[in-house]
């Protein structure tokens, strides 16, 4: 078991012939993901790497191949439309890797996707991986190993760091989800916590948040009221100055809200384990398995 993706995931890649799309398409295929189609307008009828059929539209791809999941590697000006195209074409999961999507575009896309009952992960995220089964996005496969820990994070490389530490210590993962660092994203911590709570294989959860917004505080409240499984949390940006966007569009302390201290307090109040350093996840998770 796992969350969101598994061996039944049939993937269509939007932007499969682009620089990033083609590189990661190969990586995902090597990992064993069922890549059933690609989409690049104007290249319909061709094949990627001689095998994967390319279509002009997501609709065509879904009809011809039965793809149920889409991953998006198109440039930022086209990302919002790509998400809506995928949702309209009938896939149930859309993962948008693209960084730099204007937030006002997302205010349009979010209700569009919600109303169709489609799950969106991202934008500006590394995607997700269910070790040994399927990978959708850019998380390096070799740092993961199957096991009992669910991982959810707003950041890419910080996720890699923690997963790498866990794997090195012999602690594997059910699914690792990068929800992205933008102020408006399709899937939040609570969505992932709820999925991990339901997943019988997940025994503990590692959650990496960062400064900005109140997602982590709401997640802590959810842990307190809805979760039976142990959750260990970390917040990046304890040394960040207020009012500055720390790389991620969403990582900004506004006035006195969104600080690391506020979030860590919420974690403590929810009885969560608190990792002061990425390495601390290893002992804290081990003690809870």
């Amino acid at each position, binding site marked *: 078991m796992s969350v969101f993706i598994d061996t039944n995931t049939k993937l269509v890649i939007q932007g499969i012939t682009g620089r990033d799309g083609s590189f990661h398409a190969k990586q995902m295929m090597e990992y064993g993901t069922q890549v059933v189609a690609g989409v690049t307008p104007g290249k319909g009828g061709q094949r990627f790497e001689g095998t994967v059929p390319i279509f002009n539209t997501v609709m065509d791809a879904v009809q011809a191949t039965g793809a149920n999941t889409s991953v998006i590697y198109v440039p930022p000006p086209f990302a919002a439309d790509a998400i809506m195209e995928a949702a309209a074409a009938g896939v149930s999961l859309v993962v948008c890797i693209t960084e730099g999507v204007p937030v006002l575009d997302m205010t349009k896309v979010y209700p569009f996707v919600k109303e169709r009952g489609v799950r969106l992960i991202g934008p500006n995220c590394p995607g997700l991986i269910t070790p040994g089964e399927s990978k959708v996005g850019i998380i390096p496969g070799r740092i993961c190993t199957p096991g009992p820990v669910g991982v959810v994070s707003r950041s890419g490389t910080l996720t890699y760091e923690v997963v790498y530490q866990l794997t090195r210590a012999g602690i594997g993962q059910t699914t690792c989800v990068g929800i992205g660092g933008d102020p408006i994203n399709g899937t939040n911590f609570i969505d992932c916590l709820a999925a991990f709570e339901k997943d019988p294989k997940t025994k503990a959860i590692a959650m990496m948040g960062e400064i900005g917004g109140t997602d982590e505080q709401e997640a802590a409240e959810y842990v307190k009221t809805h979760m039976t499984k142990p959750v260990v949390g970390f917040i990046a940006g304890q040394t960040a100055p207020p009012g500055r966007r720390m790389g*991620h*569009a969403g990582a900004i302390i506004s006035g006195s809200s969104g600080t690391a201290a506020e979030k860590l307090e919420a974690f403590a109040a929810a009885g969560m384990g608190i990792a002061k350093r990425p390495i601390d996840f290893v002992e804290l998770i081990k003690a809870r398995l």
Partner: protein
Amino acid sequence: MNLHEYQAKEILRAHGVHIPPGRVATTPDQAEAIAREYDTAVMVKAQVHAGGRGKAGGVKFCKTPADVKEKATAILGMSIKGLTVEQVLVTVAADIGTEAYVGIIVDRATKKPVFMVSAAGGIDIEEVAATTPEKILYVPVDVRYGLPTYDAMRMGFFLYEDVKLARGAAKIMQQLYAAFMASGCSLAEINPLVVTPQGELVAVDGKMVIDDNELDRRPEIAALRDERSEEPSEVDARNANLTFIKLDGNVGCVVNGAGLAMATMDLVKYYGGEPANFLDIGGSSNPEKVVNALRIITADPNVKAILFNIFGGITRTDDVANGIVTATKANPLQVPIVIRLTGTNEEIAMKILQENGFSASSDMDTAVQQAVALAKGGK
């Protein structure tokens, strides 16, 4: 990206909002000439990206052109929260009856633009929200439909009992919303929105923050960037496609990925050091980026040690290693460097570094501790 008050006002004016005439000056003589032209009482206002301009003495009321020249002389060149005032706005002073607050911000919780309006204007809205939240009306907007008149009127009546004023305010909300959407804002506000003793609605101060992700498709807005009002090293970094924020410590950090970059700064602090900066070289690993990153970091005289923390995913660690070698060959380092690399092509990277006299570790905690010790002058 923050706009100056005068830039925000020009955009609002273009959308129909009534704003007193005003122009910017960079010298006291220019300021005096503008005041002479208006031939009435004016405000002289420092144009810097900082709150609390009034308290800092950067906003003055002047009755005569001579007074304007004197006040402009004092304000131009003054420092407000570390930023030097390079320009002042000279604008016709409005008679103030009442003051209201009208703002719109992209709200993360509702995932919509949300209006905030309050009759308690002219002061810090965050303070109002904290102390008397019932004085603020929040109205979310579904961008697919825009701001409907009934919602705009609801806000108008929240501010004013008089139907004429309520209608006038509702019109301003729609103009503000149009300006917000057309400019790609993450925040736009009019504070205060003034009712003059003659019963006219006037926007006396305006503020706009633009979503950086909008700038590529809005060159006319991107052109409003005022590089003189920014930290020079941050301008340099942006032009080199790096995300860089200068801080006050002495451990220079070069990291890939925003989350890991923040976590690295935090770890520096955890081990008793102070980070000199936030720097994310991003996902694609072009050796040129590393060269630029090192140039920007070593230009800061506070930096006593440099710490690389690279987790190779898309980023190839051998590209980073090559960047370090190239940069340090051209400009030998004056301060010690600690390198942590792991992930994609780690073995090749380690070999490149060793052949060029560098050592590197694959453990984040070890590297951070070393860098902190070196910055303190230890071993």
